[in-house]
């Protein structure tokens, strides 16, 4: 089989991992002959569905011995199989990188033979890249659950980021849909990497030449919509993962039905893109906006509001905290204003040091007032009469969107709710301004 065929099979098999991943780690080119990873990452292209392409994302192999029901590579599926040699993969990465197609490699694999054998092959590919070719670009590798801890350790010394996928948001779903995997198998390497990172950080302060271990941190991913968990459950799990395992990112992947199975949504179910989008927005609130999961979602209404983003949804039910005066409000409060994002809040803080801000000045700063105007005052003035009840506020801020019916999650909505990309740590990639 030639490399073109292998690439098409193994890219096809890797794509349903729908997170957009880009680099998130600074590595200088002094560390090698080719490549440098910039901390902000860089999207070199965008797929026809609008996701950022920053890394070459492929599987080492799709010849899996496991049989996870939701997965296209599962053993019992009739699907073409291919396996890269470590050398082929390393060459492909370098050649794409030179031409400025990619920032690095995102390597994952099906379980070929045993978890250990699979990890060894992955490690060999990374070793060729790092040691023989002196590649200092970004590498994200997925650890295979169930592999020897020594191998996870070695992988961590070669990659910038390592992830272990949670796959499904609960143990029960894991048991029914991914019978070969266990919660223990997944959480064990996750804990190992966390400890490894902490120890490494300590060693780095003591010895100058300690090799870096997973310098860009670890992340995980879960599939949304294949199993019955609510957003309430998912967001609390996310919060716990950030706290307990010090994860850099949690990714959500809207389930794309590819196979018929009584335990899975039917083939004509649309991927819950809007839900995925809302979860990412809520995730931003957890990581950058100082929110707690319990503020964002309430067990009595366990799904995120489909019509308004989670920040708006919080604001309309806390009208007593508004309006805020842009000339005096602190950064944390500015961030809670719908329509003012991290960039906007920083710009306001910077600009108001030298002048008082009125609405025209805000516009010049690039603040979109469409929503913000209902929640702020400038020098004590409002731009518009501010609705007093949650219902009338909700009506006011969503009115331009009220043309179509908003009863279910469908594709039609997406032209209105233009989904922000599911980008990783990349401000340009994910605007994060909402």
């Amino acid at each position, binding site marked *: 089989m030639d*490399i*073109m*065929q292998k*690439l*098409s099979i193994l*890219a*096809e098999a890797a*794509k*349903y991992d729908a997170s957009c991943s880009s680099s998130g780690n600074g590595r*200088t*080119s002094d560390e090698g*002959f*080719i*490549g*440098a990873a910039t901390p902000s990452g*860089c*999207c*070199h*292209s*965008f*797929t*026809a*569905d*609008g*996701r*950022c*392409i920053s890394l070459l*994302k492929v599987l080492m192999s799709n010849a899996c011995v496991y049989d996870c029901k939701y997965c*296209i590579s599962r053993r019992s*599926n*009739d*699907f*073409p199989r291919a396996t890269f040699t470590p050398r082929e993969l390393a060459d*492909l990465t370098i050649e*794409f*990188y*030179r*031409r*400025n*197609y990619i920032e690095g490699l995102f390597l994952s694999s099906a379980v070929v033979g045993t978890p250990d054998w699979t990890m060894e092959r992955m490690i060999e590919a990374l070793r060729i890249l790092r040691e023989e070719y002196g590649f200092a*670009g970004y590498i994200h590798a997925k650890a295979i659950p169930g592999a020897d801890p020594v191998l996870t350790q070695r992988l961590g010394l070669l990659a910038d980021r390592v992830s272990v996928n949670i796959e499904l948001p609960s143990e029960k779903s894991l048991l029914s849909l991914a019978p070969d995997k266990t919660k223990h198998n997944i959480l064990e390497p996750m804990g190992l990497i966390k400890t490894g990172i902490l120890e490494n950080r300590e060693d780095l302060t003591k010895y100058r030449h300690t090799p870096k271990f997973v310098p860009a941190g670890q992340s995980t991913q879960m599939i949304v919509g294949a199993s019955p968990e609510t957003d309430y459950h998912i967001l609390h799990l996310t919060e716990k993962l950030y706290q307990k395992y010090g994860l850099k990112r949690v990714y959500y992947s*809207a389930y*794309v*039905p*590819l*196979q018929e199975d009584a335990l899975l949504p039917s*083939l004509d179910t649309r*991927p819950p893109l809007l839900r995925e989008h809302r979860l990412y927005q809520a995730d931003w609130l957890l990581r950058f906006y100082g929110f707690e999961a319990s503020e964002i979602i309430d067990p009595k209404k366990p799904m995120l509001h489909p019509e308004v983003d989670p920040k708006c949804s919080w604001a309309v039910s806390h009208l007593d905290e508004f309006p805020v005066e842009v000339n005096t409000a602190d950064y944390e409060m500015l961030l809670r204003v719908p329509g003012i994002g991290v960039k906007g809040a920083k710009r306001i803080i*910077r*600009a108001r040091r*030298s*002048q008082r801000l009125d609405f025209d000045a*805000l516009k*010049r*700063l690039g603040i979109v007032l469409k929503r913000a105007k209902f929640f702020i005052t400038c020098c004590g003035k409002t731009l518009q009469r501010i609705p007093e009840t949650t219902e009338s506020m909700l009506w006011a801020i969503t009115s331009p969107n009220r043309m179509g019916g908003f009863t279910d999650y469908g594709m039609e909505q*997406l032209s209105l709710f*233009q*989904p922000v*990309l599911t980008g990783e740590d990349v401000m*340009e990639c994910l605007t994060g301004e909402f």
Partner: protein
Amino acid sequence: MPDRGILIFSYDGSFNGFLSAVFDSFSMKTVPADIVIADDMEPSLLKIHYVETNLEHARRVETGIEKKLGETVLRMVKRAFLFDGEGKENAILRFIRKAFSEGKTTGGKIGDEEVNRIYKMCVAVNNEAERFRQFTRFSDSNGALVAVIHPKHFVLPLIKSFFCARIKNEHFMIFDAEHGAALIHTSGKTAIIPVENLELPETEDCFYSDLWKTYYRRIAIASRYNPTCRRSHMPKRFWQYLPEVQEELESSFVPKLSFGTSAQIAADLRQSHNLLKGENP
């Protein structure tokens, strides 16, 4: 004399030339109605002052800005000068004059109209530079890497360090056909030099670009197809550089994204491989 009639400045288009014009504006105690590049000038009845590029004057203006107004203002001036658009010189001059009368904090007054103009120019330049970090594509021509770009603004100085860090051991060239300049990096040395009408050799670097096209087609998810979102992140004007969308640029091409279920994808993969091998599906 400066107060009679409309006066315009003409200069050579270089940064030092512009700084010399700033110097002249202060020493002549006048603000010209416009500052234009000598080559672009149309004959007119206006009074013209021909600015002579004077390195000594330029240096004095530069250190003056740095010392009195601080690094931020100087950085903004330099960045805004890379902007390509009418009236940029005049806008920068006004900004500099404002900064000299209002002091160091001027750079931060992005709510002010004149300062905001410069701020917007800087943002436009930065954004354009970021696009070309993203969408510049090299092809391999006998081991050397070559790229041609047509940026709106003069971004070569801004993308230089990005590419030099990435591929420092390669020989590469990025030719800005719009501004007649090339970034050349060879044997660890880098320079931006003026280049006119560069004849580039035809490259036959299709092995990896074909692999890249295949990869690009394979990773699209049919059920998430969203061309509007893609275009907003990757505007059409950059497509000329990108091998992965060349076929779509030709209007008759309809992206093949019809496959949906696992069985359909498998069939599609098998079929395309049989085609490759020249067998009948």
